[in-house]
C-alpha cells in the first residue's frame, strides 16, 4: 500500500470553556482522498472540534497541522493556565492562531450545521463571493475595472461550477427561496468554490428525508472524485456515515472513544454503550 499523504492532523486538541471541557485531548488524522466521519451523541463536541479547525475558536491546548504545516497551536495561558482541566498542559509552547478567513485561504472550506447562505443574494452571487478571496485585485482596480480578465475568470469559474452541480437553471434564484435540500447543496457548492483541499461538512444531511440522504451520499462521493478533495464530515444519519466513510472517529463527552473502519465501529462495544447507554446492572 502506498504511503498515505496526510492532510489534516489534530494532536491533543483540547477546548475548555470556563470549567467545561468540550473537546478533550482529541487526536485524529485525515489522509488525502479519504472521506472521514466524526460521529457522537449530541453535545459530544463534534462541532466544537470543527470550530477549532476552522479558526472560529482558539483551542485551549494542542496543535493542528494542515498538509504538514502547523496552522493552529496553543497551550493554556493566562487565567486558563490555572483552571486548565485537560491533559498535556506542558507539551506545546507556541501560540499560533488564525482567523477563519486565513484558514479558508490555506485550503479548508466548511459548511454549517444551520445553513448560512447569503440570503439577500442569488445562487450565482453566493458562489461568486467565494471567488473574491483569490482574486488578484485591490479595491481601486476592482472598482475601476482595471483587470477585466480577473473578473471574467471569476465569472467563468462560477458558471462552470454551477454547471457541474446542475444548478445553472436556478442561478438567478434568491438563495433563501430554494428548497431545503438545494440550499444544502448550494452551501457545499459555495465551499467548493474556494478551491479547497479539505472540505468540512457539518451535518449535511440534517433534516433530509431518506431519499435525499441517499442522493447526498452519492453527491459527496462524486465531489470527492470530481474536485480531488478530502472530506471530513459530521453526521447523525448512521446509514449515510456507514455508506460513505473510509474511517470513522467517535466522540463522547469530548473524548475520542473509538476510531476505525465502519465495520469495526459497528461492533465496538464502547460506541454501542455511548449511543444506547450502559445497563445499570451489567
Amino acid at each position: 500500500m502506498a504511503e498515505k499523504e496526510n492532510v489534516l492532523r489534530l494532536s491533543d486538541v483540547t477546548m475548555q470553556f470556563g470549567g467545561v471541557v468540550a473537546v478533550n485531548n482529541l487526536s485524529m488524522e485525515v489522509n488525502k482522498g479519504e472521506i472521514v466521519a466524526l460521529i457522537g451523541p449530541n453535545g459530544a463536541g463534534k462541532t466544537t472540534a470543527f470550530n477549532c479547525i476552522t479558526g472560529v475558536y482558539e483551542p485551549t491546548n494542542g496543535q493542528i497541522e494542515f498538509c504538514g504545516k502547523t496552522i493552529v497551536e496553543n497551550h493554556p495561558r493566562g487565567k486558563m493556565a490555572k483552571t486548565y482541566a485537560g491533559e498535556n498542559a506542558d507539551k506545546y509552547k507556541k501560540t499560533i492562531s488564525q482567523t477563519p478567513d486565513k484558514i479558508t485561504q490555506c485550503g479548508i472550506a466548511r459548511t454549517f450545521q444551520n445553513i448560512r447562505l447569503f440570503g439577500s443574494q442569488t445562487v450565482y452571487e453566493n458562489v461568486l463571493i467565494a471567488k473574491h478571496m483569490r482574486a488578484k485585485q485591490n479595491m481601486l482596480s476592482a472598482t475601476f475595472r482595471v483587470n477585466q480578465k480577473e473578473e471574467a475568470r471569476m465569472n467563468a469559474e462560477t458558471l462552470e461550477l454551477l454547471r457541474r452541480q446542475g444548478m445553472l437553471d436556478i442561478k438567478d434564484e434568491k438563495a433563501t427561496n430554494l428548497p431545503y435540500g438545494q440550499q444544502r447543496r448550494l452551501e457545499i457548492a459555495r465551499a467548493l468554490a474556494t478551491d479547497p483541499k479539505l472540505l468540512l461538512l457539518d451535518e449535511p444531511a440534517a433534516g433530509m428525508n431518506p431519499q435525499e440522504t441517499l442522493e447526498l451520499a452519492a453527491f459527496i462521493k462524486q465531489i470527492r472524485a470530481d474536485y480531488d478533495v478530502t472530506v471530513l464530515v459530521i453526521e447523525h444519519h448512521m446509514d449515510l456515515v456507514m455508506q460513505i466513510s473510509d474511517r470513522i472517529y467517535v466522540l463522547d463527552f469530548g473524548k475520542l472513544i473509538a476510531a476505525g473502519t465502519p465495520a469495526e465501529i459497528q461492533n465496538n462495544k464502547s460506541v454501542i454503550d455511548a449511543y444506547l447507554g450502559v445497563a445499570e446492572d451489567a
Partner: protein
Amino acid sequence: MKKSTKLLINLGLMAALILVILLESMFLPSTSMIFPVIRKGAIYALVAVSMNLTNGFTGLFSLGQAGFMLIGAYTYAIFTIPDADRASVYMYFNGGAIHANLPVIVALILAGLVAAGFAYLIGLPVLRLKSDYLAIATLGFAEIIRAIVQWNTLGPITNASNMLRKFATFESIVAGWRTSSPAFNEACKNAKWLPTFLTTLMPVLICGICIAVIVMLINSSYGRAFKAIRDDEIAAEAMGINLAKHKMLSFCTSSFLAGIGGALLVMYQATVKASVYSSAMTYEILLIVVLGGIGSITGSCIGAFLYVACSEWWLRGLDSGKFLGISAPGVFRNGFRLVVFSVIIMCVVLFWRKGIMGDRELDVEKLFGRKKKHGGGSGPDLPSGEVSDNG
C-alpha cells in the same frame, strides 16, 4: 439589454439632466428655490449614499457621518481661504497658522483623505464592535470631533468656535473665472443664466461622479464581499473574506466620500461653523437613508432630493403662516414644519417600512428594458451597473 446600450442610455439620461438644469436656469429666475434644492439635494444624496455604503451594504451601523463631514468641511475651508483674507477670518488668532492655498479640486480630495485618515484611526478600535455599540461609539466620536474643533487652543488652525469664511465657494469660483477671463465675463453679461447654471451644475457633477464610483464599487467583487458581510459575518469569514480589512475599507471609503460631501456642503453654504455638524445632521442623513431604503443607492438619491425639497421649499409655508393657500398664522408658525415632518416620517416608518425603494434599485434596464414603463428619479444618480432586484 446589451452593456453598450445601457451605457448609451445612461449617458443620454445624464445629458438630459444637464439639459434640464440648463433650461431651468435659462427660464426660471435665479432666485427660484429649485436651484438651492438641486445643489443641496445633490450634496445630501452623496452623503446619504456614502452612509448607505456602511449602514446599508456592509451592515455597519455607524452614526459618525456628521463628524466626517465636519472634518472634510474644515479641511477644505482651511486650505482654500485666500491669503489676503486670512487676517480678517482669523482675526482673533493673528491670521491663523496655515497659509497654504490649494486649488479647489486638490482641497476637495484632501478633505476626503483627511476624513478617511480619521476614519482609519477611529476604525481600528471601533470596528470590533457590532450594531448598536458601533453606533454609540461612532456617534461619540462625531461629538468629540465637534468639541475638539471648537477648542480654543486649536484656534490658529480651526478658528475655534468662530466661523470660517471667504474660502472658495461655487459662486466665488465662477466669480474668479469672470475676473480672469474677459471672454467668459462677456458671456455671463450676455447670458444672465450662465452663473446660476454653472453653480448648480458643479455640485451635481461632482456628486454624480462620486456616486457613480460608489455604484461601481458596490458592483465590484469588493461590493459583493461587503454584502456578504452584511448578510452573514460568520459565513463571509468562512468564505475567506477578511472581516477587519473589508469593514475598514468600507468605513474609510464611506468617510472619504462624507468628507468630500462635507466640503461641498460648505462650498454651498459659504460659511462653516462646527456647531452645525451636530448629531442632528447625522440623523437627517440617516433619515434620508431609511426613507430611501437601506441598501438602495437610487433610494438614497430620491430620498435626499425629496427631503431637501420638503424641508427647504415645499413645507416652508408651514413656518411662515401660509401653506397651500391657507393662511393661519396662529398654527403655521415657526417650528410647525418640524411637527409635520415628524408625522410624515412616522407614517413612512409605520406603513412603508422598507422605505421608498426597499433594497431594490431603479435603473435603465427596468425603465427602458423589459417593461416599457417610465418612472422618475433621473437624478445625478443613475446606477450604471446591473440590476440587483430579485425579490
